[in-house]
């Protein structure tokens, strides 16, 4: 075992190497833009230089002179597409701002023309030569700009269900021994996956093939079909690898149908690779948020009143909100809780999911406030969490299926050396550096969605698993192969996995950290069907049917004796008894509590995700505790983070290697969301300024020299058959609060607005 491949503990799979390790490190893995196309036309986007107004006209004369130019598509000659409907409101789209539909401009960087040429270089040059004249209106950039409108999220967005409340907050707060009121702010952030937003469209006899990095191939297929007004069966999305996504590739962006329509008109494959800066405006982002937290507590630290009010920016066109009060009101025991989320509209592109969409901003507020309260009470912040730990969430009094929050705090504290921390701020220095330690809780809902799979087992022990899951760097290939190998009793190396193709049985969006739980549950179920056929063939009269059912049904039940013996069954004999050499099974799995229309919706590319706080009789979350050491240079005020420690409990760990990698990336991301990442908006023009990877700060290796991930064993039989809690979005939650809490410990200065830059440090 190595650091990268930790020794499995109880209820953890083997840290087998990644299924796709070799193709990736040798450059053989083909991403969307690598797919060879026959004689493609290259598309280059022209995007608006204003955020609000209209296009008066184009001067294309200079662009048309470029050798190799094929066409320039603008709103004047673009094909009209069907009305888009927002993902969060029952549709497929990331935005309802439909480019090329009219002369109106509703956001900075809106697509206003697509230039097509025989080479990428010619398309780019012609695009640079396009001249546009606008009539600009004064746009509203963000919270403090004139012209915003604000309204409660509830009722605007079907995805946003409730403003949780219980008891009498006002009364309890008024009478509380200790009170805290604090406001927090988080910035605009962009996903910036390494892989750019690429789209290639190829038509062949009325059949459209799309090569595009997508976290949801069935959603993309159906969404594009809907916009083009064609049968979804005529569309196929292929996408075996995604070079990072973080939510940005989950819903359908307008570019895809636009490129598809152009390819159909040209009768030629069209390839688009949008530039880095265009990625800031043609897809989604994490909008800036503001929070007011009010906490009332008794002297011993018990929370008696909690109120969380959140405000989020969205576009004029769409009421998007992440609405994280659903978790911040349920994390700790408290009898009187109130909350409200509102959406503030500005002239911006529509925001969307970004890794742990609600948790990152909302837990920043709550977990910062908890630290402030602990300091007020002169209590260790871990002890404050312990006093308020609960196995039942306070709003509906539903039990957590499992909750190892305090175990994570204790394990993490030990590894970090928390007991040596000074409670008093500004007491530790090391040469030029002020040293501070901070911690915070993290949590993420355990979510699952219906998924289908096809599994083929051969007499010689080789297997092929087909499921339209997504390899976004999460290790999907690996854990799916492991799940199948486990269930079929064959070596991992004998399993072939096909994913990332909408012709395969549908899997849900690789978002909400539901992928492993959903795909592995489906794959394990279908592997069970395969086993069942073999068992039946071999032992028709041995009464094993019931027992095999037990084996192949719910995953947590102990495996049958037959399976335990190391020889689950004599496979070859079973095949011979069947008289065939291949067994193939297809099955559709849905989680408990999934609505009746789940399978139909699944084939239509619509999500029926269940879990988290939205289950009838229980609540399912993964938990963790994060510890941060910050150092602040007394001269330059530079803030550095030499140490990040996270302890996490997430049900069954399929593979400690891929789990660790996800959580480690999460910790670094979380630190980065506190100190580095912020998209700056030019207030007068409502345009993004630092829309490139030099100015949009991401951490480099030197910024994260010490990252330790601790995986706690945890077994949860009340979630999904695979016993898995999603962990892809667990690592980067709460880190921002832990960083600020550590900065307070180092300096005595409380910072409530992210990101923290050196100019925000006072002393």
């Amino acid at each position, binding site marked *: 075992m190595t650091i990268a491949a930790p020794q499995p503990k109880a209820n953890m799979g083997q840290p087998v190497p990644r299924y796709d390790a070799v193709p990736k490190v040798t450059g053989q893995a083909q991403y969307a833009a690598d797919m060879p196309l026959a004689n493609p036309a290259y598309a280059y986007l022209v995007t608006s230089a204003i955020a609000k107004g209209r296009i008066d006209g184009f001067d294309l004369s200079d662009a048309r002179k470029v050798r190799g130019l094929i066409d320039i598509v603008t709103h004047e000659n673009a094909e009209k597409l069907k009305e888009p409907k927002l993902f969060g409101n029952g549709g497929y789209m990331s935005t309802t701002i439909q480019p090329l539909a009219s002369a109106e401009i509703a956001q900075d960087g809106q697509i206003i023309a697509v230039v097509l040429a025989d080479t990428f270089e010619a398309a780019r040059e012609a695009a640079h030569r396009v001249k546009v004249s606008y009539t600009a209106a004064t746009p509203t950039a963000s919270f403090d700009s004139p012209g915003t409108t604000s309204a409660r999220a509830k009722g605007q967005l079907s995805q946003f269900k409730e403003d949780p409340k219980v008891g009498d907050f006002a009364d309890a707060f008024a009478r509380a021994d200790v009170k805290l009121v604090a406001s927090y702010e988080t910035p605009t952030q962009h996903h910036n996956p390494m892989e750019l937003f690429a789209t290639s469209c190829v038509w062949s006899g009325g059949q459209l093939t799309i090569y595009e990095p997508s976290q949801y191939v069935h959603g993309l297929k159906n969404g594009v079909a809907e916009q083009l007004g064609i049968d979804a069966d005529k569309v196929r999305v292929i996408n075996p690898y995604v070079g990072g996504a973080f939510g940005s590739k989950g819903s359908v962006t307008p570019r895809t149908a636009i490129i598809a329509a152009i390819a159909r008109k040209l009768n030629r494959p069209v390839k688009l690779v949008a530039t880095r800066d265009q990625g800031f405006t043609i897809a989604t982002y994490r909008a800036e948020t503001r929070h007011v937290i009010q906490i009332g507590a008794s002297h011993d630290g018990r929370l008696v009143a909690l109120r969380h009010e959140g405000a989020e920016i969205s576009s004029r066109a769409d009421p998007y909100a992440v609405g994280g009060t659903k978790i911040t009101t349920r994390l700790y025991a408290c009898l009187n809780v109130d909350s409200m989320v509102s959406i503030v509209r500005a002239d911006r592109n529509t925001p969307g999911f970004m890794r742990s969409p609600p948790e990152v901003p909302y837990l920043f507020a709550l977990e910062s406030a908890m630290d402030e309260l602990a300091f007020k009470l002169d209590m260790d912040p871990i002890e404050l969490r312990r006093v308020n730990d609960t196995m039942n969430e306070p709003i509906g009094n539903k039990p957590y299926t499992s909750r190892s929050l305090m175990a994570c705090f204790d394990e993490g504290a030990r590894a970090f050396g928390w007991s040596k921390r000074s409670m008093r701020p500004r007491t530790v220095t090391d040469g030029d550096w002020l040293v501070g330690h901070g911690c915070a809780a993290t949590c993420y809902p355990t979510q699952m969605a219906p998924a289908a799979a096809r599994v083929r087992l051969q007499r010689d022990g080789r297997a092929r698993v087909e499921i339209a899951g997504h390899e976004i760097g999460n290790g999907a290939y690996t854990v799916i192969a492991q799940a199948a190998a486990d269930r079929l009793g064959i070596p991992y190396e004998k399993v072939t996995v096909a994913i990332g193709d909408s012709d395969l049985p549908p899997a849900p969006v690789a978002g909400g950290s539901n992928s492993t739980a959903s795909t592995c549950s489906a794959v394990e179920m279908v592997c069970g069907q395969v086993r069942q056929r073999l068992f039946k063939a071999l032992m028709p009269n041995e009464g094993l049917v019931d027992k095999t059912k037990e084996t192949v049904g719910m995953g947590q039940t102990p495996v049958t004796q037959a399976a335990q013996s190391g020889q689950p069954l004599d496979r070859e004999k079973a095949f011979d008894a069947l008289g065939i050499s291949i067994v193939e099974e297809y099955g559709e799995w849905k989680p408990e509590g999934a609505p009746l229309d789940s399978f139909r919706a699944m084939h239509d590319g619509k999500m029926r995700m269940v879990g988290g706080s939205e289950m009838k009789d229980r609540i399912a979350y993964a938990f963790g505790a994060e510890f941060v050491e910050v150092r602040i240079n007394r001269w*330059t005020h530079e803030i550095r983070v030499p140490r990040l420690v996270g302890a996490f409990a997430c049900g069954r760990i399929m593979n400690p290697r891929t789990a660790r990698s996800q959580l480690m990336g999460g910790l670094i991301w979380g630190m980065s969301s506190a100190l580095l990442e912020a998209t700056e908006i*030019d*207030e007068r023009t409502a345009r993004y300024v630092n829309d490139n990877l030099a*100015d949009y700060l991401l951490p480099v290796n030197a910024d994260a020299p010490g990252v330790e991930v601790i995986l706690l064993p945890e077994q949860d039989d009340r979630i999904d058959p695979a016993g898995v809690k999603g962990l892809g979005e667990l690592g980067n939650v709460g880190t921002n609060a832990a960083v600020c809490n550590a900065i307070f410990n180092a300096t005595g200065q409380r910072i409530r607005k992210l990101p923290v830059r050196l100019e925000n440090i006072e002393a």
Partner: protein
Amino acid sequence: MRAFIFQRATDPSAAVQALAAAASANSPLTEAAVQPLAGGTTLLDLMKLDVMRPATLVDINPLAGNWSTIDFDGGNLKLGALARMSDVAAHPQVRQHYPVIADSLRLAASPQLRNMATLGGNVLQRTRCSYFRDVSYSACNKRHPGSGCAAMEGFNRTHAVLGTSDQCIATYPGDFAQALMALDATVEITAKSGVRTMPFAELHKAPGRSPEIETVLAPGELVSAFTIAGRWPRSLYLKARDRQSYEFALASAAVALDVQDGVVRDGRIALGGVATVPWRVREAEVMLKDQRLDEALAARAADAAFSAAVPRRNNAFKIDLGKRVVARALQQAATMEIRA
């Protein structure tokens, strides 16, 4: 990016010939139709962004045979304009006798960039002003004289507080040039008329009323070498930045001291990240002369260094930061251990 002609210069005279061919008296050097290509890490980026649109590139890398020297003769240092940043940063004699040079290069950019980039290209790198680098902003006096300045009232956290004008507040982003400033380097320029030298401090021009003119170089002139007189073992480069690596300076100081018996005989300070051009602060230097350097003196010198600073909305912090960087750099240099 526009289509362009690619030429390779085989010797210096062919290079300057090719470059001078398209020279026009009216347009600034940065707009000249023919541009020299060294490492390409500034130039090609700006071409892809459509900011620079040369019709012809003259690749000067074939001149590296003569133009990439790193020559220390025991007393003086000569660096060729085509020497790579990484080679100079790692050179043992540079590190020993001119730590400020080695540091300024080592702390710049990334290893990959340092392997590509040359010293000549480095000192001539152009501003990172986001509005300059994004042609969709129409107001940029540096790109289009007279069009205005989007940064002046825009997001200007990284912009300059020294050497600005009402036309342009773009920061000179490089690190190495501060070392050259502090060490009173001489720059060697090769032109059609021959080779000439001048103080490096005279190479760059503050924006004033014509921010499009960034240096005194004319089309057809190449930077061929830098020379530094004397050794400067008591020198260093302190760089404050948002990330631990791979990041431009928010404020930096190149300092070089000649300290004898605890008294500063000669002290040099140049600032980076805060000014529109490589910035020498003589008004602070004179305060050090013949003094014992302590915390109070360092702080006074730092104050003097920023006495002329003009803040904008988002960059006022640079004044205070810059002062602390200068003060710290001076104290560190005063106490640094010198390898014999």
